């Protein structure tokens, strides 16, 4: 497996207001980030710091205005099954059952019907859904839908999971359970993960590495390594970890980094 690398990437959108002149907005400015196989990178930052744009570049949904996005030295020209995405609005297909949603990437890959149904059921079991296998999507709760979304992304056997605020719309209790599920999935699948989140605590708990973006234009202002996720997987309870003094100190340092440029202009 090779790393997913963004080198000096800038992204600008051209837009026109009414009949006015064409203006360009720079959402990312010379960002470099390498995602190693098996690494869990959490990206945080204020609104407008280009978090989702960074993920869209990595996914290949958009092409950079400048710089390179590549895997193993080869440029990424579009989306690919090696980088599976989980979206905040779940992006499931309501006309398919939970099982058929998970089997969808396998169907695109030409896997036979019986095999893809069996594999989809197994993936749903991995994310804690068994009784819901043949339910309709609209019968599931928000948390269950995101589990289906994660199982669907895993079905493609990706090298990297790109998670675009997948837990953002969930209630606090469900969110904590889903964080633990994400770590379990990360451990068993061995994929690299790029997680976009608004929650500093979530980034710190899940990421082996936390990257802080600042807006106007989006750029990396901090990039640190942490081991809380590994400690959780080694058996330490989640709540105890999140209440540990070193966790709280790290959380406050990250919050300070997020707001560092704001303090100067205020």
């Amino acid at each position, binding site marked *: 497996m090779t790393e997913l690398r963004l080198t000096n990437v800038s992204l600008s959108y051209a837009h026109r207001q009414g009949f006015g002149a064409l203006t360009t907005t720079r959402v990312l400015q010379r960002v470099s980030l390498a995602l190693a196989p098996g690494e869990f990178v959490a990206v945080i930052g204020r609104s407008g710091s280009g978090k989702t744009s960074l993920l869209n570049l990595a996914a290949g*949904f958009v092409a950079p205005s400048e710089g390179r996005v590549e895997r193993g030295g080869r440029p990424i020209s*579009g989306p690919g099954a090696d*980088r599976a995405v989980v979206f905040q609005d779940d992006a499931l*297909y309501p006309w398919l059952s939970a099982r058929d949603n998970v089997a969808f*990437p396998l169907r*695109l*890959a030409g896997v036979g019907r019986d095999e893809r149904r069996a594999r989809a059921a197994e993936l749903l079991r991995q994310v804690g859904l068994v009784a819901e296998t043949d339910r*309709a*999507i*609209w019968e599931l709760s928000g948390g269950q839908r995101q589990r289906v979304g994660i199982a669907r992304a895993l079905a493609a056997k990706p090298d990297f999971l790109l998670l675009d605020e997948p837990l953002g719309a969930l209630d606090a209790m469900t969110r904590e359970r889903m964080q633990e599920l994400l770590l379990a999935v990360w451990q068993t699948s061995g994929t690299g993960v790029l997680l976009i989140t608004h929650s500093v605590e979530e980034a710190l708990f899940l990421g082996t590495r936390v990257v802080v973006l600042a807006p106007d234009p989006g750029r990396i202002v901090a990039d640190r390594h942490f081991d809380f996720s590994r400690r959780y997987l080694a058996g330490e309870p989640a709540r105890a970890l999140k209440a540990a003094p070193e966790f709280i100190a790290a959380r406050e340092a990250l919050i300070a980094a997020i707001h560092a440029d704001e303090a100067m202009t205020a």
Partner: protein
Amino acid sequence: MSAGEEVIGVAPVAAPAPRPVRLSPLVATLLTAAGLLALWLAASSFGWVSPVFLPHPAKVLAAVGRLVGAGYVDGTLFEHAAASLGRVFSALAFSILVAVPVGLAIATSPVGRGILDPLVEFIRPLPPLAYLPLIIIWFGIGEGSKVLVIALAMLAPIAISTAAGVRSASESQVNAARSFGAGRLAVLLHVQLPSAIPSILTGIRIALGAGWSTLVAAELVAASRGLGFMIQSAAQFLVTDIVIVGIFVISALAFAFEALLRLVERLFVRWSGHH
């Protein structure tokens, strides 16, 4: 009786307010129909209107019997209805085959939209009687012309609702498929078309309405069978009871297919409106 009801029975806290009489929609519908029928009965029984304008309901009922048995203008009621149904559904099949791809092209390709959207908007407001003469000049007075006249009225609603339905697929639903390796065609077939189905069904319902209302115009042209033809022939000889039967039969058929389509929606696109 459940435990809860027993408790209330033993110790009532307050006398329940008298229930207001509620009219269910079905009862309101039945009452309206009964009222209109009574008005009709009264109008023809008491001679308020001439039987030429409005024959007695019994006479209309007798006309149904005559139509089913002996028929009128060389065809039984069943034969006339079958001819009209054949035209409306040939037209529907034709317009689905043409308009769904047109709608897909409008929604997914800027060039497709540039070419087809103005054409659809050109056809949409045209009254069938306006283009009927042109169709006859171009295609003659055969069965094809009649079907084409009806189909032209059905094309626009299906094309427009297909295009709207395709756009109802969210950007992330499309991007999800792309990230699993789907190309433009696979996205169209597996994501955009399925998400358009509820909207297409609505378009078909609207189109069938347009089709039925175009039927009589289409059967103006050298027809020898059909409900529209039957009505026009009867009107020429002031056989008002046959005209009324024809109107009721068209309305009943349209209602039956509307009900059928709603059933199809309830059974097969239960997911729409839930996501």
